[in-house]
């Protein structure tokens, strides 16, 4: 995806350069610009400010010590009727037709500027995912594989419990790896092959273990959207929809075991990894590695797996430290499970920061390509974004962390009888959050480069 983005970003830059040459007014403007003192904040100061903002948010949160109030904020809800039969049927139809259209266009459409490629990466992986945490998780209704699985017979084998959600963790990491090393973000034919493979694996799994079990436990995409959806204001309940404050439903999300904690961490790491492999630092490393004659695909895999291990290890370590600073006999695993939902707010904030400009700049291209999916239009429009748009990304990262601090605060007050104990239990998590804020701000500040 990063490669696609870099190419299109290059296009945007070229377009802007063309405009500058074409417009004489801009030539005069150039003189003004050079005489004006440009105020640029150095990156290290941006990182420091971001870290300080997150730390200060934690300190301010410690002033909220009223348990009833903490619960009232998270428990606030307004009920609304759920979607009717017609809307549910329409969602299913849209999902299945979308899948069929993507497969068809990817299989027979043009190999350059293919509408299916753009739809999958920009429309679905960036845009649709945003709706799941900004609005609500509609995936159980739309999920075409779920609709198709419902048409198939089921063997209803019992799902092996010892596997937990590890298949979903591995599948998510595998998809991320395939996305970075294969040409599926550019070339429609391999993309079609991957979609077919995912379809076959999913339908086989749903047939053997039953659709409910499969999508609840083993399917990576359903879990991605379910977890992101827990951040969203619109939640589905047994009898309709309920409107919550953003992140309010995270207090009720049960992360059941170690494998589910691992999935939350994998989700956070997946977007971070995608950001990291498009930085200049990585381009240098990858260039050196390739010059040494080492194939890059296993190197990407090693970095993906190693980084995931580092993230998971770091989170487990902070849970162990939290057990000590919080002076509690709760097991480390319990602490890790209970604080894991707060990471989802961070993951959502970083996802938004990472993909929003990508989505907006390519949104017109999706519309144009979708209108003529089987032929390449002479021009693909790209929306140029103003420079200040970077601030939106940074704001998203900070908001994600501030939300996470609130969620962790509410969790701690739910877990621990002592107020000061609840505050102290958060120390290691806050340290990790401050560090992660600075890391993601740094990633965001890096210019995108084409990596080998």
């Amino acid at each position, binding site marked *: 995806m990063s490669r696609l983005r870099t190419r299109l970003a290059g296009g945007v830059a070229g377009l802007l350069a063309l405009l500058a040459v074409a417009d004489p007014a801009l030539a005069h403007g150039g003189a003004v610009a050079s005489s004006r003192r440009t105020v640029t904040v150095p990156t290290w100061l941006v990182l420091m400010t971001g870290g300080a903002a997150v730390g*200060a948010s934690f300190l301010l949160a410690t*002033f909220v010590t009223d348990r009833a109030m903490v619960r009232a904020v998270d428990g606030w809800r307004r009920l609304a009727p759920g979607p009717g039969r017609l809307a549910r049927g329409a969602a299913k139809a849209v999902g299945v037709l979308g899948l069929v259209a993507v497969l068809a266009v990817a299989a027979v459409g043009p190999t350059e500027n293919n509408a299916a490629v753009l739809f999958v990466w920009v429309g679905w992986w960036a845009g649709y995912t945003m709706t799941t945490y900004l609005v609500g998780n509609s995936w159980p209704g739309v999920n075409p594989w779920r609709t198709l699985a419902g048409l198939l017979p089921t063997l209803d084998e019992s799902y092996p419990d010892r596997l937990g959600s590890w298949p979903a963790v591995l599948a998510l990491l595998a998809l991320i790896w395939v996305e970075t090393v294969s040409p599926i973000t550019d070339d429609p034919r391999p993309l079609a092959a991957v979609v077919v493979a995912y379809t076959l694996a999913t339908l086989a799994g749903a047939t053997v273990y039953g659709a409910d079990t499969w999508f609840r436990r083993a399917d990576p995409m359903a879990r991605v959207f379910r977890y992101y959806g827990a951040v969203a204001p619109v939640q589905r309940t047994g009898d309709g929809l309920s409107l919550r404050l953003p992140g309010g439903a995270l207090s*009720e999300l049960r992360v059941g075991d170690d494998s589910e904690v691992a999935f939350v961490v994998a989700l956070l790491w997946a977007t971070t990894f995608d950001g990291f492999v498009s930085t200049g630092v990585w381009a240098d490393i990858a260039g050196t590695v390739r010059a040494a004659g080492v194939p890059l695909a296993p190197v990407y895999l090693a970095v993906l797996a190693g980084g995931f291990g580092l993230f998971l290890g770091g989170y487990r370590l902070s849970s162990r430290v939290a057990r000590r600073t919080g002076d509690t006999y709760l097991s480390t695993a319990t602490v890790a499970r209970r604080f894991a939902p707060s990471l989802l707010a961070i993951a959502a904030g970083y996802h938004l920061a990472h993909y929003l400009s990508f989505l907006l700049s390519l949104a017109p291209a999706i519309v144009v390509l979708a209108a003529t999916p089987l032929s390449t239009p002479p021009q693909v429009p790209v929306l140029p974004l103003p420079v200040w748009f970077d601030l939106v990304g940074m704001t998203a990262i900070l908001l994600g962390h501030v939300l996470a601090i609130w969620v962790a605060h509410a969790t701690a007050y*739910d877990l621990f009888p002592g107020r000061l104990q609840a505050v102290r239990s958060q120390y290691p998590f806050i340290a990790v959050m401050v560090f992660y804020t600075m890391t993601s701000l740094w990633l965001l500040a890096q210019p995108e480069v084409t990596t080998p």
Partner: protein
Amino acid sequence: MSERDAAAEDVPGRSEQEATAATAGPTHVGTGPGPLEGGFDPPASADVFECGYCGRPFAEEDLLALHRGHAHSDQLSEPEQAAFEAAYETETGEMRRFQLKAAGLVVLLYFLLLMVYALV
């Protein structure tokens, strides 16, 4: 697959065993996780203060007193109620001192950043 199941997949906490906990809501303030099994891991050598009502272990007597007051407020004996109130008072004082330091730290952070911005 039925519609109900599709909806249930989407509801946080609606997965099998947690269904009852989710409908009850998080009312167990300060009591730790719902089920006791596997949730705690008290060290063998340290003092353990166990709650007489629910069996949850705590590292300090004050924390146990606070837990009893929050989680079992309708069942407390008089000495337990008194212990809760005393522990709560002590904690309020500690909390005030902590918040004073926190406020100081926020102000300090603010001015440090302000100075750095002025210099850069």
